[in-house]
């Protein structure tokens, strides 16, 4: 993190207005991504990692809304842009990849037409030029016989091939940042590694940074430069991926690392973190992790620990003494 960050999320708060009152789904989430960097965002279901991605691409649907904090892209605030201006950013500056390639593509429009449409939305190209570019993108993502495949419909592609098309679509407008929300979760295990490698290589070639949202610590370890660990709508630890995986500081990250099966050590049983993440309408006071924390102490139950401002930072009383105001 030496250059000016491409994306900076500062104290982001997302609230869902419900009949029972507002539910705070993201609580003072901060993270930043440097140009070309891959940031892994990891956590269990409901930790708010996808929601952070959705807020960044500006597709938060009511009743969800940004209640506080800011999102900056290349130093400009984008969280309060008018809908039309945000629409122009999507695809051109920020691309997105979603979890399920089977349902991400329009079933009745050929992949070529979907690509051409996206390309021409963002780049001043003629139909012929756009088609040539679409073909080039399909080749780049490794679609065999791209010349014929370009006129095929999504149902004629396998899941892995469709996710390649999705990646081509996300890259079509040459975005600086790609928010990839669980890009491999819906795929066969054998295909997952291929897609992850492809994504990593292409983003490097196109100079795009990636926010890789996943619950799979293994994918993060192989792919990401830095990692942000989320728990119950907060970032609990962030840092370079080697540092966080080798020497996790937050008890939650430690638990997460211990629950990954290892090839080296043969253990009879995998360790697991007891209990479940608190629901949004039943958040405990203090540190949200304290009911499950093995090293909990008195002040954890009453006040929220602040995320440190160091390169490898954790939000835990054991490592950070300052309370979050």
């Amino acid at each position: 993190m030496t250059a000016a960050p491409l994306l900076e999320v500062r104290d982001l708060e997302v609230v869902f207005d419900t009949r029972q009152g507002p539910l705070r789904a993201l609580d003072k989430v901060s993270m930043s991504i440097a140009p070309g960097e891959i940031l892994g965002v990891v956590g269990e279901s409901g930790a708010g990692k996808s929601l952070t991605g959705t807020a960044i691409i500006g597709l938060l649907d009511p009743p969800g809304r940004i209640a506080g904090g800011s999102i900056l892209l290349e130093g400009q605030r984008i969280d309060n842009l008018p809908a039309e201006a945000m629409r122009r950013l999507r695809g051109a500056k920020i691309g997105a990849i979603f979890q399920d390639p089977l349902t991400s593509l329009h079933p009745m429009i050929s992949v070529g037409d979907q690509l051409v449409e996206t390309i021409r939305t963002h780049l001043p190209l003629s139909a012929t030029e756009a088609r040539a570019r679409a073909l080039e993108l399909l080749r780049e993502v490794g679609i065999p016989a791209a010349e014929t495949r370009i006129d095929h419909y999504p149902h004629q592609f396998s899941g892995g091939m469709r996710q390649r098309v999705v990646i081509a679509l996300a890259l079509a407008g040459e975005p600086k940042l790609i928010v990839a929300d669980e890009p491999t979760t819906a795929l066969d295990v054998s295909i997952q590694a291929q897609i992850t490698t492809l994504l990593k290589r292409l983003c490097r070639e196109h100079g795009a940074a990636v926010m890789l949202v996943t619950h799979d610590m293994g994918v993060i370890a192989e792919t990401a430069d830095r990692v942000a660990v989320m728990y119950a709508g907060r970032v609990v630890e962030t840092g370079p991926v080697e540092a966080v995986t080798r020497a996790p500081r937050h008890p939650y990250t430690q638990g997460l690392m211990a629950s990954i099966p290892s090839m080296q050590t043969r253990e009879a049983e995998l360790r697991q973190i007891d209990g479940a993440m608190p629901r949004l309408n039943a958040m405990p006071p203090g540190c949200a992790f304290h009911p499950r924390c093995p090293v909990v102490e008195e002040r954890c139950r009453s006040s929220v620990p602040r995320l440190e401002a160091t390169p490898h930072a954790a939000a835990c009383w054991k490592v950070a003494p300052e309370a979050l105001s």
Partner: protein
Amino acid sequence: MLVFLVKRLLNAAAVMLAVGFLAFMIFRFVGDPVELMLNEQASQQQRDELRVRLGLDKPFVMQFATFIANAVRGDFGISYRNQQDVFTLIVERFPATLELVMLATFLSLVVGIPLGVYSAIRREKPLAKLIQFVSVLGVSLPSFAVGILFILLFSVSLGWLPAFGRGQVVQIGWWSTGFLTHSGRLALILPAVTLSLFQITLVMRLVRAEMLETMRTDFIRFARARGLPDSSVHFRHALRNCLMPVITVTGLQIGNLIAFALVTETVFQWPGMGLLFVQAVTFVDIPVMAAYLMIVSAIFVTLNTLVDLTYALVDPRLKQDAIAGGAGGR
């Protein structure tokens, strides 16, 4: 595609045969045709002669075969009431009904689809809620009531539009059209609007429901994530996905409109098939009723087949299925 087509056509032929049997049964067994055709003073000899001429002395199966063979050639016999060839009678009336129905269908699509899209994508707006509310009226008001109200307002009070008839028609071959004369066009307006009112609300509500469903899908979310303009997301991506049910319903409704235009035709004294049928029922003119039944079913079956074929054109997935093994008949 060919296998698919042949399958659909065989299907259609089977349905028509069944309907033909029904029409034949009405013709043969609702009252005695001989009694209906001759006056009361006719002698027994005259009765027997007519019986032989109508072929009623032959075995049942033979009679049915003759009936079908004649029907295929467009020969449905002679109308009891005005002693004219039934088929000619219906063919004369058919253009009037079809023009009315086509205009009503056109109106229902041109008005219904945009209203449906609008009320789905702007569903929080007061106008969208108003449309939704008014559409309940459209569904629940019977067309004869609407027709009479229209006549009262636009013909009697305002005197803008004719209250009945087709106005001046132009003959093009056997087809008579009202589109080419001023009075013909004026006369079409009220009946067509009356007939289309229910269709408009039907199409609108269908499009709205389908749009709301489609707007929640992943591919719409992904289209928005790629920064495509709203107009493209709504009309190119979302609406396209809603067209299948609209095609189905419109196709089937055209059949319904032709069959049930008779209420509207009666209200506006529109010289179409519906009016002919109503008159035939009043006079127990059985050949006309049987022929009407056959022709309306033929239209239904044709439309159904066309709808199935259109699916394959709109949805590439079905085209694939159809080519693969003719399994596209959903």
